[in-house]
């Protein structure tokens, strides 16, 4: 290649990032996807929309979130670690960035209702939150198993005025909630927007969600400059669908920073998957030799997804980002270490990224390496589960 490649720009006209992406949806949803693409393109080019998006995230969502230097963890690991504090965003994770964008777009498209899928409930709570604020009605699809495991989050969504529908098909978890939301969307696409929760699904979702999340990376880049740190050696984030990772990578894709996405070992689409088509996108998927999708298994519900956003599949292919996997056993010690040393209890999802730092410090990460960790969410939602697990161990 002669001219240096530009990463994390727009996908091509077919919604492709390299070989990945696209729009593999039933005809009944094509019109909605096309309309959404047009609406998003227009809105994102409209200063008024962009300003409103930033304004809402500022006055309602708690942005900018700070960058915290994790001095004690740094000393402990011999690194210099900075955390982008998405745990401080409203509803407790980066998910709010995306839903604020999509609900504003919903209004702009003249629709009065949103539907969403959710696994553990984070995206569902965020969607219900943003919908409440705009007076949109909201229905959230959630695997029946997850509604039982996360009964409190179901109630939280209901408090926010949303209807939660348990999904009884398939493995009754996140993957099936996505299927069901897509199915339901078919029958209400006229007045309803499907507020997808990560950088996945058919075009324009992977691109749009990444754009909404890229505020994380842009803020962090500016904040690190202001702190005199400049470009970190490594930018690391956990990856479920990949939205928080995409959001922070976006701020550093065209720098020298090494980008690392940490998947759950039981849902490591890049490490253990193969290319395929699911949920409207061509990406890396965990599937059998016949193309049947397998269930992901992770201690953290938010990483319990057998796929990954297509742009990540591309970034891996292009060797621009590296994807690694962390097993369940390393997650809780990482959560404990960050809690004890820094007074921040991270989400189990986020703890995967911390676990990778612990594993690699002194190995692939030389002493003194500067690291920007995307602290994608807070652990309050996980505390009961962690307690059960630790009790079971002792």
């Amino acid at each position, binding site marked *: 290649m002669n001219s240096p490649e530009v990463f994390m720009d727009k996908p091509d006209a077919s919604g492709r990032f390299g070989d990945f992406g696209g729009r593999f949806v*039933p*005809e*009944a949803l094509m*019109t909605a996807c096309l309309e959404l693409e047009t609406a998003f393109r227009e809105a994102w080019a409209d200063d008024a929309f962009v300003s409103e998006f930033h304004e809402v995230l500022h006055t309602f969502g708690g942005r900018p979130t700070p960058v915290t230097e994790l001095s004690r963890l740094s000393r402990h690991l011999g690194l210099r670690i900075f955390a982008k504090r998405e745990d401080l965003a409203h509803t407790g994770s980066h998910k709010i960035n995306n839903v604020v964008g999509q609900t504003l777009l919903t209004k702009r498209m003249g629709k009065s209702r949103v539907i969403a899928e959710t696994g553990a409930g984070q995206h569902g709570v965020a969607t219900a939150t943003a919908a409440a604020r705009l007076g949109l009605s909201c229905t959230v699809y959630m695997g029946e198993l997850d509604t039982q495991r996360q009964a409190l989050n179901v109630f939280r969504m209901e408090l926010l005025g949303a209807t939660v529908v348990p999904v009884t098909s*398939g493995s009754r978890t996140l993957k099936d909630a996505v*299927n069901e939301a897509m199915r339901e969307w078919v029958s209400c696409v006229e007045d309803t927007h499907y507020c997808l929760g990560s950088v996945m699904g058919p075009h324009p979702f992977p691109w749009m969600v990444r754009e909404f999340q890229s505020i994380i990376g842009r803020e962090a880049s500016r904040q690190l400059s202001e702190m005199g740190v400049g470009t970190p050696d490594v930018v690391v984030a956990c990856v479920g669908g990949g939205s928080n990772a995409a959001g922070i990578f976006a701020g550093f894709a065209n720098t020298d920073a090494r980008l690392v996405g940490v998947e759950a070992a039981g849902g490591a689409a890049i490490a253990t998957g193969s290319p395929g088509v699911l949920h409207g996108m061509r990406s890396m998927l965990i599937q059998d030799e016949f*193309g049947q999708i397998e269930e992901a298994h992770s201690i953290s519900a938010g990483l319990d997804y057998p796929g990954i956003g297509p742009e990540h599949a591309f970034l891996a292919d292009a060797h621009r980002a590296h994807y690694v996997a962390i097993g369940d056993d390393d997650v809780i010690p990482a959560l404990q270490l960050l809690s004890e040393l820094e007074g921040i209890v991270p989400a189990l999802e986020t703890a995967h990224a911390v676990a990778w730092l612990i594993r690699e410090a002194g190995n692939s990460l030389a002493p003194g390496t500067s690291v920007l960790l995307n602290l994608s969410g807070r652990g309050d939602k996980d505390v009961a589960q962690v307690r059960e697990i630790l009790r079971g161990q002792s």
Partner: protein
Amino acid sequence: MTSLEVTLRKLREGGRRAFVPYFMAGMTGDWLRHVEAAANAGADAIEIGLPFSDPMIDGVIIQQAAERALERGTTLASVVRDLATLDVGVPLLAMTYYNVLLHGGLERSAAMLAQVNVRGAIVPDLPPEESDEWASACASRDVATIYLVAPSTPKERVTVIAQRTQGYCYAQGRMAVTGTTSEEGNGAAVAAAVRAVSDVPVYVGIGVSTPEQAANAAPYCDGVIVGSALVRRLLDGATPEDVENFVKSFRTVLDAKNN
């Protein structure tokens, strides 16, 4: 023109409204008997579902059928092995999701299907924009690629799809997944939109579950496709005779009507 379309156009020219039932391949050990029964009872073509773990446009009935088929170890290869033993005299149409074909390999999948008398393929999550490769794999093997038009499809798109579809144009009768049974539907409008831009046969599916609905649809289309209503009976243990009776009940209304 694909041989499927030749066959179906002939039916139309003969004044016959086509009836196309759907079966989930491998759902039971004797599934081929059901297919035969349908052919014997007057089905004009038969959709053979190849199960997929995540059937995005299917309702609970087809989902359950797919789960059962997968639990029984059904794969593209096993279905092809089964079909190799079948001779029903009417065209078979494969219906599945793209990932199943991708993993079989597009060329290889098309070849395997063609080999066992599959003359058309419906891949609901593969819109025209994404289907060039698949379509060309099919084209060289006389496998028609059948596309859907939905109530939400705008005019210009209808034109594109109607020109591209082969065999028939699948007019989705309702904005819903398969197996929904509400009364009102948009089948007439969708079929009319297709007819306005093309003379390809138009079959209505998704939203036809009873002979009455088929009778209502008959005047404005060239055939009807019935999936969930039949699969539900099979999930409940229907015999080949039940299938025959089911198909005949549709056959009767479709033939009786002078449209």
